[in-house]
């Protein structure tokens, strides 16, 4: 069967890298003496000592080969899997669309001005105002576009903060154990029990952050403890795995083990959690802007919703689109994140990945 063959070949690639690591380790004398390979190995005698000093017969890959292989394994195969899965594809498309809207769109679409068109044009009727206008005659599409960069900055800041903090604390606590573990976990539990949304609201009101990055960071406070707990329990089990122990016996540094063995195995959780916390930050930020808790100096979907909620006559179906457009956008972007998270889940599911990787390679060669 073709897929299994490809699985084998990918495993040999793994083997090469570990062999390279082993040679690297073998050049250090103290680790070899600690390994206890010498005299006591029994009366059978005649152990070929060169086995232990021999560096491998595997030819060193050239830089070009390394880059190619890295590209295929890190970029090509995952994206092939992602694009094969309709959920991943759709999610990625939605998010790319939003990023384009936030970067390119801002320059293409001019800023909204008051009274640039008639009041309350319903959407999809007049194509000078594709999404209609609000009570001040502002084009809703332009408002939407110019609100996107702030949203994206907020999401990035918040999701990054929660993922970095959660992973960092969870990994250190799980790997170190002992006192560091108990201190960090007490901290995590404390933050977990403080009602997060209330804390965020209080902080936001007292400090009135204007910068979307700062808003994102404040919203990220609530998000990291759960991730820290999950990551810790994962690290606890990864720590006992054979390959981690092998790295430890080879005398590799803690940093190396954490980076290569632990973090790389945690990647599925991290990426999925990135998408999830991004979604949560969108929800919370829009809610806070909607309630007017955060300062309304900047254009934002939540601010738009607030304007619409107070400005439009909500019983009149001709005006309600003003409120519905930002809502639809929020739903769309969070749908994008959820679908992407599910698609990513598929990438990091190792068994599935091996099969798809084979499929991707096969498709390339034929």
């Amino acid at each position, binding site marked *: 069967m073709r897929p299994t063959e490809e699985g084998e070949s990918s495993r040999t690639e793994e083997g090469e890298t570990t062999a390279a690591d082993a040679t690297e380790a073998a050049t250090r004398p103290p680790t070899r003496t600690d390994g206890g390979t010498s005299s006591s190995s029994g009366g059978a005698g005649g152990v070929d000592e060169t086995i232990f000093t021999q560096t491998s017969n595997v030819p060193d890959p050239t830089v070009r080969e390394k880059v190619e292989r890295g590209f295929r394994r890190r970029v090509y195969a995952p994206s092939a899997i992602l694009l094969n899965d309709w959920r991943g594809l759709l999610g990625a498309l939605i998010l790319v669309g939003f990023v384009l809207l936030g970067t390119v769109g801002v320059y293409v679409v001019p800023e909204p001005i008051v009274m640039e068109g008639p009041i309350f044009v319903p959407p999809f009727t007049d194509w000078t105002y594709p999404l209609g206008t609000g009570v001040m005659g502002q084009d809703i599409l332009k408002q939407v576009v110019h609100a996107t960069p702030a949203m994206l900055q907020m999401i990035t800041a918040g999701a990054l903060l929660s993922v970095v903090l959660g992973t960092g604390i969870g990994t250190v606590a799980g790997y170190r154990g002992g006192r560091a573990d108990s201190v960090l976990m007490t901290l995590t539990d404390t933050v977990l029990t403080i009602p997060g949304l209330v804390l965020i609201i209080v902080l936001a009101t007292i*400090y009135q952050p204007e910068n979307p990055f700062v808003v994102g960071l404040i919203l990220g406070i609530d998000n990291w403890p759960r991730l820290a*707990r999950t990551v810790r329990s994962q690290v606890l089990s990864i720590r006992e795995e054979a390959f981690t122990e092998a790295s430890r016996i080879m005398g590799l540094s803690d940093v190396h083990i954490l980076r290569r063995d632990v973090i790389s195995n945690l990647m599925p959780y991290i990426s999925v959690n990135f998408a999830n916390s991004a979604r949560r930050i969108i929800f919370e930020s829009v809610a806070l802007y909607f309630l007017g808790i955060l300062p309304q100096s900047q254009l934002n979907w939540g601010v738009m919703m607030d304007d619409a909620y107070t400005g439009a006559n*909500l019983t009149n179906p001709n005006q309600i689109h003003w409120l519905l457009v930002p809502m639809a956008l929020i739903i769309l972007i969070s749908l994008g994140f959820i679908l992407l998270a599910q698609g990513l889940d598929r990438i990091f599911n190792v068994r599935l990945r091996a099969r798809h990787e084979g499929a991707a390679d096969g498709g390339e060669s034929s």
Partner: protein
Amino acid sequence: MFFIALTVTFALYRMLPFGPVEMVKVRLMKQLLEQGQSPSAEQMRRINAMVETYTGIDPSVPWYVSYYEYLRDIILYQDFGHSIFKNKPVFDILYTAMPWSVFISVYGLALGTTVSLLFGAVMAYNEGGKFDAVMTFISIGNSTVPYYVVAILTLIVFSFNLGWFPSGGRMDPSTTPGLNLPFIVGIVKHAALPVFSAFIASFGGALAFRGNCIREMGEGYIRVARLRGISQGRIAIRYVGRNALLPVYTNIMMGIASVFGSSIILETIFNYPAMGMVTFNALMNRDYPLIMGSFIFFTIVTLTGILVADLTYGVIDPRVKGGNERETY
């Protein structure tokens, strides 16, 4: 745990730069400077006194003294300070608002959890069927739509347009409080939409429970139980349901905190005068003692919820005696 949370709150509230104390102080100083007066020692004292009346904090007292006094007042006299804006003790305001909040949140949470667990189980039993597909779609949709959007939309449809439910308040003003039918109907009507939205907020976990159920159903002991002739219902509840519940249960416990937190948003949207509304108004009026007090109240309620969940954890999972050595995060 409570004291740590309290201390953190207190620290955040007092120590960070540009906190309430400094804000008020700076504002007052600016006023003085605009009047062309330079702050002398006499005026500094007056500023400090004004800051104290505005925030309930005396800036001339070091933080550890005021922390001690604050704690002492709460524990010995149940005194959370005095609301500046409403001119009433904080405790009284919160005490009257509290039950309504708990009423809505607990109903929403209980309904949401029960229904999502039931759906999850049914989905698992009909795996791959039409019901499963439809419900999976709905669950994903539910996690995409924020609960407050649902709240706003239901408010617009059922209250503004159809007029079935009132758009604010917590009871019918024309009825007399007590155990009579119109009063109770009024309460239920006012609570219906908030509870529905809280239900949406806590509806989740159906998919996770479905996955767990499916995995448990494939286990060997289920087959053994079937071979032993144990009834279908007993297998479903005692064998599959209970074992599949364990991993979801911790998630539910963590959800408690977020449900109580979300009541601020919900109650403000529905204009439902309970804890959330009180907090929101306090925030808008910069009523710092009231903010601090309601924050502590929220923390206490959340901690109580988690404690209850923690104690009942042993009932569901007999392997856990007490809450301390639980490791299934």
